């Protein structure tokens, strides 16, 4: 009996070793491409051409100079991306919370119909209406404006859905009643009492809305033609063009710069992000 148990333990030990090896291998696979990117951002093109290295070199400054001497302006791109992502995130979470609150607290005739409708349009891909959207914005002279990248965020069905689930689970209507008795208007109640209550959900959705907007390529690519308006993902496509053909050091530099803000956000907030992803799956 003891012998059987021992062999079981030994085989489990071997299994565990295999599992750790696979997991560490996958973790390395996640890190390595980015590691090479950051390291190569500090190496000269000649060094990069001569072979692979995982140790940083000393050409950071040169690569930066070459990168910015051509049409690539990372600070401008960062600023553009930030303006668009920050404002669209505020629009998305604020108005989605408002809509969700309207759906949960008030009993109105079309409430159920409206909610079903939100469920129906949740999955519609943005690309499906892109041509009409572009033509419409062109007629309004809104191409090369940030507005068409920000304002559509006001109608974010998936966030409304999430916020509604959150409110149903956490909000007791007595709080709303109490605020009414104290003479608070409905809108003031929402801004001063409900938004603070919803903060955990707002924060989670804000992270994802921000990252989604920051990473968006398709819409900015069709709407923005003026180089000074480019967002970072559109700028990245410049790195593929002829201007940097052989300047590998500065290409890696440009890539590293576009990815850096996300690495910072990710490592500061990874706990909340992972929890948010898990929530997204079980929300059904």
């Amino acid at each position, binding site marked *: 009996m003891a012998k059987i148990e021992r062999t079981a333990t030994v085989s489990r030990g071997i299994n565990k070793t295999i599992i750790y090896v696979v*997991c560490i291998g996958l973790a390395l696979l996640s890190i390595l491409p980015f590691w090479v990117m950051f390291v190569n951002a500090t190496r000269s093109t000649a060094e990069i051409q001569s072979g692979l290295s995982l140790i940083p070199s000393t050409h950071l400054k040169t690569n930066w100079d070459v990168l910015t001497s051509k049409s690539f302006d990372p600070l401008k791109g960062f600023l553009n991306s930030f303006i668009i992502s920050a404002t669209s995130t505020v629009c998305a979470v604020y108005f989605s919370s408002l809509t969700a609150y*309207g759906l949960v607290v008030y009993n109105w005739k079309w409430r159920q119909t409206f909610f079903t409708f939100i469920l129906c349009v949740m999955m519609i891909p943005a690309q499906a209406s892109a*041509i009409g959207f*572009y*033509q419409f914005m062109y007629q309004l002279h809104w191409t090369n404006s940030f507005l068409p990248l920000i304002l559509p965020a006001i109608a974010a069905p998936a966030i409304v859905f999430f916020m509604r689930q959150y409110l149903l689970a956490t909000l007791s209507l007595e709080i709303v009643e109490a605020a009414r*008795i104290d003479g608070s208007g409905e809108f003031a109640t929402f801004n001063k009492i409900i938004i603070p209550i919803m903060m955990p959900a707002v924060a989670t959705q804000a992270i994802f809305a921000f990252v989604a907007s920051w990473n968006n390529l398709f819409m900015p690519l069709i709407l923005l033609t003026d180089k000074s308006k480019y967002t970072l993902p559109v700028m990245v496509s410049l790195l593929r063009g002829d201007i940097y053909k052989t300047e590998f050091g500065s290409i890696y530099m440009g890539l590293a710069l576009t990815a850096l803000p*996300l690495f910072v956000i990710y490592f500061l907030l990874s706990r909340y992000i992972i929890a948010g992803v898990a929530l997204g*799956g079980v929300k059904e």
Partner: protein
Amino acid sequence: MRRKGVNYSKYGYIFSIPFIIAFLIFSLYPTLYTAFIGFTDMKGVIPKQVHILDNPFGNFKDLILNNVSFKQSLVNTFVLWIANFIPQIGLALLLTAWFTNKRLNIKGQGAFKVLLYMPNIITASTIAVLFSTLFAYPMGPVNSLFHALGWSDAPIQFLQDKNTARGIVSFIQFWMWYGNTMIILIAGVMGINPALFEAAAIDGASGTQTFFRVTLPSLRTILLYSLVTSMIGGLQMFDIPQLFITPAGGPDNATLTTSVFIYGQAFKGAYMYNKAAAASMIMFLIAAVLSALLFYLMRDRGEAKLRKQLKLQQKAAKAAAKGV
């Protein structure tokens, strides 16, 4: 008690107005407009009078019957999606089985989750250009690595071969998404009633048996959810195929996806807005069918769950009756 007389229901409408207005302007109207353009002769950079075609369905018919690139793009989208989804769900399931197995008690799960999920959050266009630079010819990091390991004698032109290009694009998609799928599946396992696992353990089920007989059947709906959302996401695959190989589309259009096709038709060359709009509508219809499928499956799930619970209750009642 007079307060009860106040009718607050109008605020339900008021609070929904911003959403509805934004939706009508930025979503519904552009969708209808796209559908309309699909029936017209709108093309060219310079706007001119637009006419509905004599044969309204001409663009659609032409795309489906005659356009080789469009047909190729549908096939490519499907091939690239399948080639990333099967390994993705396989690996995610394997990792889920390992991480949720209490007997194995894998350490450092938090760190593994953070690292395996990481590629998903980084800008896809950055990743696309990064990989195309890593696979550069004649001297890129991957070529250096292959040379150093003795796997190749001469530099390989990875991006010139149809299947290699497709393989790398699928790999990038797989690499970006398996962590996401794994976290969703692990959350799904956490949601399974622990009593089921205890019962399996008491009955002497092995780890493998528990996984295939208890975990996997309970995850069925979450797997379906992953499948359908991944299909709709895969339909829109754009950033990676657009930027990974220039010109977009790759060798012999091997990595031309439907979204890349739409972008190319509308914003390059002849500016065929009408063809692009018709292609968008076809994509929209496919997505709508898939969404409806998801809806149907999820609805079924609620009922099935209810039936299961009723059965369990009946069983428990029977057992209790027996015990007495």
